[in-house]
């Protein structure tokens, strides 16, 4: 659940205080980039999606009914923006894009790990990216997704089990996991 400060920030933003909206943006930028990344597989595009979702949120702020659910609402906007970007063929998003993204890691196991993430269902992939892409805490993820930390724990466990299974099938041995 968001703290009182956040609710006050949302109320102030709805009331026309743009700087409060700015504080909310700063607070959730990393999470929105992660959500965008889970759909687009490209960091630059993910940042674009996050910034565009702020733009859409700003002009629709008065439509937000429950001020305590700002972050999940923003996350939903960001998901839609990212999906729109795929739908409008901004870039062909495929597993190939995800697996060939220009990450710094040069470990030989990295491509297999990336494929393991890619084969996850969309919601699980989003959760993994939120957790590991920018190292968000359970609390932050819970706030963004609007679900409890326990639920996050359960979903993440199941996602990692699927990943481990995939990795074992692709040559990883038990002591590597």
């Amino acid at each position, binding site marked *: 659940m968001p703290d009182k400060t956040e609710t006050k920030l949302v109320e102030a933003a709805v009331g026309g205080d*743009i700087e409060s909206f700015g504080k909310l943006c*700063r607070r959730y930028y990393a999470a929105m980039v992660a959500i965008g990344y889970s759909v687009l597989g490209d960091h630059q595009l993910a940042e674009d999606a996050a910034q565009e979702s702020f733009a859409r949120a700003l002009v629709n702020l008065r439509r937000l009914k429950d001020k305590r659910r700002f972050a999940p609402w923003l996350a939903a906007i960001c998901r839609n923006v990212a999906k729109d970007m795929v739908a409008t063929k*901004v870039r062909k998003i495929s597993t190939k894009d995800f697996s060939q993204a220009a*990450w710094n890691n040069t470990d030989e196991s990295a491509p297999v790990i990336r494929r393991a993430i890619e084969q996850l269902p969309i919601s699980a992939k989003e959760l993994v990216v939120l957790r590991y892409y*920018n190292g968000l805490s359970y609390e932050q993820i819970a706030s963004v997704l609007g679900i409890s930390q326990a639920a996050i724990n*359960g979903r993440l*466990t199941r996602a990692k089990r699927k990943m481990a299974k995939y990795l074992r099938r692709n040559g990883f041995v038990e*002591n590597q996991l």
Partner: protein
Amino acid sequence: MKADESNKKLDELISKTVGRDKPQFDFDKWKQTHKEEIQIYKSQAAGGQISYPAQQYNIWRIIMKSRITKLAAAAVIIIVVLIAIHPFNGSLNGTTAAYAKVKEAVRNVPWMYISYTGYMLDETGNKKSEEDRTDTEIWYSFKSQIVIQRYYSGLITYSDYTNQEVHTYNPVSKRIVVTALPSKKLPLEANTPWSWLERNIQRMIPFGGEVTRKRGQYDGQEVEIYEIVSAVKPGMASICGRIFVDRSTSLPIAEERRYINTKTGKPQLVEKGTFDYPEHGPGDIYAIGLPRDIPTVNSLPLPSCWDIEKAYRSHRRKAPDRYIAIVTRELSILGSPISDVEVWYTDGVRFREERHHMFQPGPVGVQWREQAAEIGNTFDSILKWSQECKARGPISISIYDGNYYYNSCREDDGVWKTTKQIIEGRKLTANEFWSMCPIANMGWPEIRGYADVLQDDYARQNDLICIEELLKGWRREWIMLPRRKRYYLNPQRDYICQRLEIERVYPAPWQKDYSWLEGVDPATIPKQSSSTVEVTEFAQFQTGHWYPKKIKETSITKTVYLETNPVFPEWIFDPNNLPDKDE
């Protein structure tokens, strides 16, 4: 214990693979790039009701921001620049390797030559007549700062940006006129081809659409194909454009555009262009294929006819949103009786136009004596007279309420007849009403053909600019002789055409082929003649903009009465109050 702590090695593997530093968000920078949304937000907070732009617009903005599509945009801009149609929004910062590669490739070519061919298609998809062709050739030398354009009509412009001159070959007058270029920069005030393209993209408006890129072949060459498909806009053609870039050189080699009629879904105009990069280009205008003995007129330091016409048209368009204009026509006979009166009421998108003909058939003098006292000679008296419909001759009154056009007309038989019709398409604007208004037409008559800047003694002595337009004769139900029109523009008074001379000439040096008159009885060919229209008095709007107050023609004098701060009675724009019988 948290689930992800149960297998720390897997956590480390995932973090190491996908993890990265937290991205930083610069809110101030974001505000700079989202001014429109902030304006809407502020308006909402203040209680306003501005609607949010269509979603397509935002996606388009993302397209243009995304690094992978910047290259596509850069290439597609070539399409847009060359036809100057359908611009779109965005910016190119040239930071990506792919974009830099194409940029560098084009920067280094000595000349770029583009040959366009275009043709209209009929409803069955067949080419229309040759008259509809839009073939154009363009040479660019960014190193020599030269741009040459040759059009299908024969018009050639050779713009030398180093020497600040443009040489224009007029295919009707068959002469070259040398004029000055307005600035020391390439078109769009850029100094390199790519900054030139960038300037174009910056001035473009969001148009919506999709950009895609794929590999393919063009004439057996491996190419990258960039395709832009514009969003469908009511009343506008949709564009499907493709540009082909040589993968080995990163240079564009061809492009094609199809303009789709959104009603039928079929292409109505097709344009294709091929690009070449020769080592050498034309050294002067004669190298395009003109004989060296063509007469040349030096009109330096005046700017080109194109630039003068641009200023002329911009002054023509300056109009008040609300006005009442009255134009009377006085005959050049004893007593200068008024023969007819036009009254224009304009209020934003609503307008009312009236034409009052003073006389019934018969002797004019008697009728005029009867009416002279009624009509008077002031704005108020003429307006009152017109509103009472006191003219003896026919009266026509039209109203446009933003959607429908109504007309009520009283013919010689004295009976009023009313009609109503829908004006299809978008609403007319106050500026469009102004362009129809007799004041605009008298002050800034349309220059339609190929014209040359050609100073003569009259222009020099009166500090005017002379533009000469030569028009070919034609034959339809009647015969129009070839004409020479000389427009004397007054740059000190908003380029008003202070004097217009029209000569009807036969035979004309600029139209030696008279096959169009074959079979015509020579007795029916009109005689040569000339006429002059001259503004003899000027006046100014409250804004300081000039307009013609009194215009003298061969047999009539027109007088303009203008009120730019009118109070309109509400019935003026009410079609239910159009007269249907005399009071």
